[in-house]
Every structure is written in structure tokens, then in C-alpha cells.
């Protein structure tokens, strides 16, 4: 590797580190979106991610990590809005179902059954969403 190339890579790495470091959630890229895209993880009507059938340990641990972060966010919002954590989580699930579940990605209503979003058809709205 020439000296120029080494300098280039060093600069690129520094730039990338700066960008990653400023990300508020410290999540590498969009972890939740990537998990949904694997087809092994889906959105649940209770506001958390779930594993669809089975998934390798690294996927499961990422799902857990994200759910922990979600619960922390729900807890903060619940305290400031005088609502229960479950209500905040359920309200967020309504938005996630409407805007975050991509075509062919999995979601689960309170009946517990995993379904896939049919192309660009909107995901059914959970009954608690009003």
C-alpha cells in the first residue's frame, strides 16, 4: 500500500468514526431497519421487536438490545406524559406499523400470529390505535 493510500484510508476511518460517534443512539447504521430486513425479526403490536421463528444468537441479542433501548425511551416518555409504559409502547407500535414495516416484512398483531406485509398494502392497524 502506498503512503498516499494509507493516508487516504486513515482519513476515511477518522471521518467515519466522527460520524458514527455523533449518532445519538450509538446504533451502527439503522439497526432496527436492518433487523426487519433480515426476515427473521418483526414489529409487534406491543411496541417491541420480536424474533419470527428462530434466529442465530447474534440476531437475538441485537433484538434484545434494541428492545431495552426502546423500553428506556418509552419509560422516559411515559413519565413526562402521565401514561403507562405499555400505553406509550402501544402508541409507538401504531406508528411503527404504519411507517416502518417495509414490504414483505413481518409484523405481529395481539393475536400473536406473524404476518408479512403484502407488498405496499398498508399494515393492518391494531385495534388499540383508534
Amino acid at each position, binding site marked *: 500500500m502506498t503512503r498516499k493510500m494509507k493516508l487516504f484510508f486513515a482519513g476515511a476511518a477518522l471521518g467515519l468514526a466522527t460520524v458514527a460517534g455523533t449518532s445519538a443512539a450509538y446504533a451502527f447504521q439503522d439497526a*432496527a431497519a436492518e433487523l426487519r430486513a433480515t426476515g427473521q425479526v418483526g414489529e409487534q403490536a406491543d411496541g417491541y421487536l420480536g424474533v419470527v421463528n428462530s434466529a442465530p444468537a447474534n440476531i437475538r441479542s441485537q433484538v434484545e438490545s434494541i428492545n431495552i433501548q426502546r423500553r428506556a425511551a418509552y419509560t422516559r416518555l411515559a413519565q413526562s406524559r402521565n401514561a403507562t409504559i405499555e400505553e406509550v409502547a402501544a402508541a409507538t407500535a401504531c406508528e411503527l406499523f404504519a411507517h416502518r414495516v417495509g414490504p414483505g416484512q413481518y409484523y405481529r398483531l395481539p393475536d400473536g400470529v406473524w404476518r408479512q406485509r403484502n407488498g405496499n398494502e398498508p399494515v393492518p392497524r391494531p385495534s388499540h390505535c383508534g
Partner: protein
Amino acid sequence: MILSNKDERRLTIGGRTLAILCAAAGLSACVQVDTPDKPIEINLNINIRQEVVVRLQQDAQQLIQNNPGVF
């Protein structure tokens, strides 16, 4: 003889009667079996008030936008 549901219930020994009979007869191991009058409703969202969920819609949208990668 065709009995209506109401009539049938009057003729059978109800839960309270059974409990009294059990206690009176000194049967300590009696298990009280009550038939519910209403169908059993399974409600998984007992802690969720729908009006609260609707009220939180804006906050939920902001939550998603402010926490990229998590939602």
C-alpha cells in the same frame, strides 16, 4: 323436555349452594366449581386506554424520529 338456559341454571345446584352444602357437611376438601354467567373475554391490552394512545400519537412520532436505529 326442552329447558331454557335460565331454567336449567335454576334447577342445577349453583356455586353458592354447593359451597354452603360443602361447609355444612364438614367436607373440607370441597372444590367450588362455579359456572361463569358471562362468556370469558380475553383482553390482552388491559392496561391500555385507547384515548391515551390517541393522545400520544404525536409524541410517538417524535420518539421514532429522535431515535434513529432504535425504531
